[in-house]
């Protein structure tokens, strides 16, 4: 897929290389830096560009195909130039039922674009997004991954109109204003932008149980004067021999040679351990 081999200009490359060095320093093994590096590339180009893929491949000594394979797996990495603002409407079940479908339809009509499309002026990319962990504020819209809670079609159109006119917009829980796609991508690469202290600590729904507790005088049990429990026999259960199938992604550490004594044993499998961990 990568046909454009032109790399970055020398000054850009030098700047990105310095950033990449900082990212790599966070991890014991270099390849772990790939996801943040892809966010970094998006902060430069507004999408995962061919030059960006080549850059990541060079930094990590991977093939471009390997980098592309990873980039295409994750929905936040864009294969085409993204709008300055990604407007995401949650249309997973709960938000959809609470009005998310109607909000998406209204925005789609207002902007004249559908899912994963960008306005001609390059300002807005519209997306249906999956559950963004704000169900108690449904229906939810996220703009460049900042929360706009309890939306209606009208409120959502108002926000989008402001973006189209170049006016700043303020999330309900987030920074004072929504940063651009490139700025946010740089944060996601792990570089602080000095805005952590902006915005609220918690929105109303987050506090509803706490406020009820305050009003009714409900508290957690008082701490006992004692301390942590007496230690018991420290030895864990005897390890049992376990399967040795090596079936991780090719090249993943699940495929490694057995190098430690621990490789030869594992604890028994329980059903409860396997269930419901996709969270």
């Amino acid at each position, binding site marked *: 897929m990568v046909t454009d081999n032109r790399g970055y200009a020398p000054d850009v490359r030098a700047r990105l290389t310095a950033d990449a060095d900082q990212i790599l320093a966070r991890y014991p093994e270099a390849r772990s830096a790939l996801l943040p590096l892809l966010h970094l590339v998006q902060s430069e180009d507004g999408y995962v560009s061919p030059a960006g893929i080549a850059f990541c491949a060079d930094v990590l000594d991977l093939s471009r195909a390997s980098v592309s394979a990873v980039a295409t797996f994750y929905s*936040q990495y864009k294969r085409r130039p993204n709008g300055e603002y990604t407007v995401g409407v949650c249309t997973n*079940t709960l938000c959809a039922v609470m009005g998310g479908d109607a909000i998406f339809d209204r925005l789609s009509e207002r902007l004249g674009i559908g899912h994963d499309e960008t306005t001609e002026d390059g300002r807005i990319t519209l997306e249906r997004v999956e559950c963004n962990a704000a169900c108690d504020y449904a229906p939810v819209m996220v703009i460049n991954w900042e929360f706009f809670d309890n939306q209606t079609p009208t409120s959502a159109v108002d926000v989008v109109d402001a973006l189209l006119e170049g006016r700043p917009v303020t999330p309900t829980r987030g920074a004072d204003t929504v940063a651009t796609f490139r700025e946010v991508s740089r944060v996601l690469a792990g570089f602080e932008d000095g805005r952590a202290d902006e915005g609220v600590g918690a929105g109303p729904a987050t506090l509803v149980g706490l406020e009820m507790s305050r009003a009714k005088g409900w508290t957690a049990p008082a701490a*006992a004067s004692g301390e942590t429990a007496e230690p018991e026999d420290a030895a864990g259960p005897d390890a049992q021999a376990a399967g040795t199938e090596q079936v991780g992604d090719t090249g993943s550490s699940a495929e490694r040679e057995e190098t430690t004594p621990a490789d030869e044993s594992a604890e028994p499998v329980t059903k409860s351990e396997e269930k419901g961990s996709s*969270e």
Partner: protein
Amino acid sequence: MTTLAPILSDIWDAPRSWTLATYTEHQGYDAWRTAIQTDPTDLVNAVKDSGLRGRGGAGFPTGLKWSFLPPPDGGPRYLVVNADESEPGTCKDIPLMLANPHSLIEGVAITSFAIGSNHAFIYLRGEVVHVYRRLLAAVREAREAGLLGTNILGTGYDLEVTVHAGAGAYICGEETALLDSLEGRRGQPRLKPPFPAVAGLYARPTVVNNVESIASVPTIVRNGVDWFTSMGTEKSKGHGLFSLSGHVTRPGQYEAPLGITFRELLDMAGGVRDGHSLKFWTPGGSSTPILTAEHMDVVMDYESVGAAGSMLATRAIQVFDETTSVVRCVSRWTDFYQHESCGKCTPCREGTFWLKQILHRLEAGKGTESDVDLLLDVAGNIEGRSFCALGDAAATPIKSAIKYFREEFEQGVHTPAWELFPYEANAAFSGATA
């Protein structure tokens, strides 16, 4: 009657609740100062004795998981916090980290020390940028205060904490997919065993725990095991965040001892929205079998929800009233599982695609007579035949919804769901406010 018990949520209403200054005013890092002077084995045993179970869905005993690490061999061991909260309906870890990231960081420090790790990772989903800002700032503040980094509090113990942003993939909440993703790969699950405790991140012994589990550790250390076990039921100890959403009067976070009933929680949330009645609900996100109005008095602990035919999981209680089409809901959940199936194994990759097609035609009133049985057949061939729990999860809403509302699916042979249950009636807004 059970009352709420704000513990994790207790300082969320404080001014600048996310800062180190606020946290330390509320006994923050006291537990860390104690723990770092404690024998790590005692810490592991305390968490074992507390009965704390994984708050990310599986409910596996946290201390037991820690104790599965093999004896130190001189090489690195890792703590990885699963902050990839993406299960539909689940919305507790994100507000926790936004309001008080230090409670997680303190738990990370104590846990890392307890398991002998010098490098911990917090894998945060990438779609919550302000939470990422808060976590990065919290780690920086803690490091500057000497609570993380090298020679912490003069003890000689070193701990690096890396906060890592994902890039949008539900499957990365599965712990081994998370590890592959953290290694810079496509997030696809690994076959277990070996479990991460034996061969996890970089094939080294690794503990993977949920945000709320780890954030619950400092108060156990500070207040003691007896304090923790004074809450909850026999096998489900302690407290947890219950997240109510959907057609309730006051959706939000309700922190309570495990063992509170669904009826009590729903009452606290002001009941189903005015003028409406309960139709069905999920106890712990979309991957847990739905329950109905018959189950109002279910005790919300692991065992009782299990006995009722579902799972406590993440305590993500999504409430749907009588205006809602169960076919529409299941169809949309299935879209989600199809979209998020990682493609590694055939039953899940192909099966979710088939399920989606069947449900779309049933929702549109264009199903065939055999479609309901076909759904059950396909779902049954995914469940238990997939690499990870995502395949099982995809089958779950379908099987449970047909169990309770089969006739509604059968109506999909002739009548669209939006005619049976006009969608406008579901929304949180209507004409004037829309």
